């Protein structure tokens, strides 16, 4: 691991398929070598519904990423999302043997094992098990328990799991391209690695990655991940609402949303009329701007409300506030709505500065794919300490077993 490694992150989103090639340096920085995007077809609410279409789009995106970066992409970190992804916090307690008072790596492994031994549905598969903290003899907030004196070691885990078949579908689709999937990562976890900085995580923050089909969120408290999940609502729903309210085709609605849409409708005079044109530029109708905005507002509000509902009990602890990222976070006025919903400071944010193609990391649409690179890097850095080889093996075994059956 003496030299930098090149990773590729792939996110199959509802509106776009994005491949990011990045160089993870050993000093912790990331350089983006190339970004390839292609509009996505055959994806609904973050999940693939049409394999063939997705693969065509994926090939497009791949070529576009490979060309500028001069990298042949063979392995990818795959970002997955979808309503089936759920999370829970689990704690495993391990009492040290009588003759032993110092915590060793084996004890930690043991505690982890117990913590991870939670009952999830038979059909589900673990995506991530993130260490939140260790508790040594009741003392909370221990990060590195190895070498400490103690009798009772508890490992606090945040476990993210999803439906095996649906995760497999995504993996399978990518394998057929063919690409090798190095790891499957929940997109919100990836995005949080670049959107939230250390301080935000420590103070408590909620990152919502509102994409086309889903709103994925991760909530951090005291540098620990406390809640995460996916609301299967996103920008696509906003577009659909517009399309149905104005009775215009979906792609026109998308355009109206992007160019004219806003979540704020109170200060718009009632008589401000917006002309809706069809593909040829003919006016097919007029609509009050306030009406359009209210339609958008209602949906946006609902998405955020849904996220809030799922984070109930944690909202009070968010000192760093709410971070919005993802394509839909570009919607005008969404920060005001979020402020209203969460009553916390709201920041719209793209990825943290990484070097490379500048325009990319400014754009919140690319938070998740860039985050995948960062995730890969973190995984790499953790290797010697946490022996994730085992973890990795377990994951691979999981995946393999799913294929066999």
């Amino acid at each position: 691991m003496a030299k930098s490694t090149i990773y590729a992150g792939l996110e199959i989103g509802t509106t776009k398929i994005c491949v990011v090639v990045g160089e993870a340096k050993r000093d912790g920085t990331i350089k983006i070598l190339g970004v390839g995007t292609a509009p996505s077809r055959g994806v609904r609410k973050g999940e693939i519904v049409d394999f063939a279409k997705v693969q065509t789009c994926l090939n497009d995106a791949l070529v576009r990423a490979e060309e500028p970066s001069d990298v042949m992409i063979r392995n990818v970190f795959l970002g997955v999302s979808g309503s089936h992804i759920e999370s829970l916090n689990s704690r495993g307690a391990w009492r040290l043997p009588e003759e032993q008072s110092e915590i060793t790596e084996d004890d930690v492994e043991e505690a982890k094992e117990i913590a991870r031994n939670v009952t999830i549905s038979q059909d589900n598969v673990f995506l991530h098990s993130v260490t939140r903290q260790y508790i040594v003899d009741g003392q909370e907030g221990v990060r590195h328990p190895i070498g400490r004196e103690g009798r009772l070691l508890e490992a606090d885990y945040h476990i993210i799991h999803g439906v095996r078949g649906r995760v497999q579908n995504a993996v399978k689709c990518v394998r057929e391209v063919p690409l090798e999937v190095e790891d499957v990562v929940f997109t919100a976890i990836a995005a949080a690695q670049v959107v939230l900085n250390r301080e935000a995580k420590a103070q408590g923050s909620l990152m919502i990655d509102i994409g086309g089909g889903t709103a994925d969120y991760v909530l951090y408290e005291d540098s620990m991940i406390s809640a995460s999940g996916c609301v299967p609502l996103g920008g696509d729903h906003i577009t659909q609402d517009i399309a149905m309210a104005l009775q215009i085709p979906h792609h026109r609605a998308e355009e109206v949303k992007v160019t004219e849409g806003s979540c704020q409708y109170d200060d718009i005079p009632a008589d401000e009329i917006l002309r809706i044109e069809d593909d040829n530029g003919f006016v097919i109708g007029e609509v009050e701007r306030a009406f359009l905005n209210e339609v958008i507002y209602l949906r946006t509000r609902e998405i955020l409300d849904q996220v809030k509902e799922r984070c109930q009990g944690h909202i009070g602890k968010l000192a760093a506030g709410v971070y919005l990222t993802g394509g839909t976070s570009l919607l005008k006025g969404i920060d005001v709505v979020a402020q209203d919903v969460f009553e916390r400071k709201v920041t719209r944010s793209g990825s943290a500065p990484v070097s490379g193609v500048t325009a990319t990391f400014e754009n919140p649409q690319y938070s998740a794919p860039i985050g995948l690179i960062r995730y890969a890097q973190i995984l790499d850095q953790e290797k010697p300490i946490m022996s994730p080889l085992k973890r990795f093996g377990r994951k691979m075994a999981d995946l393999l077993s799913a294929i066999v059956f």
Partner: protein
Amino acid sequence: MVEYHRNSLTELTTPGSLKTCIVGIGGAGANVLDRITLDRTVDATLVALHTDIRVLSHSMAPVKIQLGVELMRGVGAGGDPDLGREAAMYSREQIRQAIEGHDIVFICTGLGGGTGSGAAPVVADIAKNTGALVFLTATMPFSFEGKRRLAQAEDALEQLQKRTDALILFENNRMGELILPKDGIQKAFIQADQLIAQSLRAVSTIVTTPGLVKLGLDDLTSALSSSNGRCLFGFGEARGQNRGSEALKRALKSPLIDQGRLLHQTKTLLVHIAGGDSLTLLEVDAVMRQLGKNVPDQTHILFGVAVDAKLGDSVSVTLISSLGLNQLNTIAAAAPPVDMLPIKSRTMPSVLSAVAAQPAAKVAALQVPLEMVFGEEEVTQPAVPEVEQVEMFATDITEQEILVEEVAAELPANEDEIYSEEEIVEEEPPFSYAPEPEPEPVKPIVRPRIEDFIPAIARTNTSSLAAVVARAAPAEEAPMAPPLNAVAAKKPTSQEEQIAFRFSNDEDRGRFKNTEPALAGGGEDLDVPTWMRLKRKLKK
């Protein structure tokens, strides 16, 4: 081919503005001049000086002076600064003639070689004697060029320090970061030249254009005043939403600033914000506030604002500061080992940060022809009042400082106010999806709400859009948001019920027809448009 008018370029001065002259010395200088000519970014007289006749003949600068014709016979100085100096001495008279009559003279050169290091001090001397302000924009050699060249550069620098008013030094090593590793070396040099051209343009704009909060030469020199300092320069321009912060972001992304990291060390930082007529105080405040996060509290911020109609709806942010070489190296060593490696393995090339500023250059380039027209018209007018203007700078200083302080004092006071205003633009009463038993209007605003559209949209076979338009015509329906029960009372027909039934149909899920429904806590299908569901609830 790039078209360019040799004659008009030489006389690009509008009356009242300071006359600037850019002198490019040696190979590096000639390259920068070419870049400036191509981009037409700076209104100035361009003069190219070189000992090598071949380089000179390829140069695009309108005025070319071959140094030491008799001595050198058109051959380069071969890396010997003494030869370069001698050659320049031979051509003293010619140089003086070219430089004379300008208020500001920029000398661009690459230090370390023969002509650049040798002739630059001579030219600086001459320029100083003509009474002009002398700026030096120089690049320090790559570390792989060897210690000898570095020493020559340092020597020249020492001499130049005494003769110039301000030094803007660029570290070539850092320039390597401007490009992607696989890009050609040519591109690397083009990028570097572009950056220097940009800085020249920025500096000359800052110093010459009138501003609301004016920055003068004094500010510039104090920003560049660290001993043995290297210039930290960042320029960003942006338009559209959030243009202020975007511009700042771009400026901070300049590799010479290293993502703003280097700013943590600076003692003085010059910030210049320019925009069109639409530039608001709020934007300026926001930019300064954001910048404040990148800069330690004790840094002396020299702040200037200018409104320049040329910029249209874009805002540009220029950051200039300097950092001692030692500091720079320690910081650089802490991050990527920049100075130790050859270019191709160097870390962090962010091309686009340099390229991002490009549109700005293009905009300026487009504007030049316009000015040229004016410039030509006014050539006959002698530009006398320049000297007075320079003096005016001096008298301005105190005023400026007060202004800067005032603004600085005002900012914190305003901050909370503006901030809170920004954050809580609209405080709406909490919106409830569940229908309230009480027939109170959800929002007390007298404007047609979504509830009004129920009858219109309920008729699914006709366009709701048409209904909206139709509704706008009869005045009696429009003015008030009726209480919820009133809406319900309007249409208690059987047709309504039928439609209510259909709402739970798959139809209403539109695009999401064939997907797993997104069910909320109450079992409602979230894929159905929110407004539709809301209406259904309201009707019940």
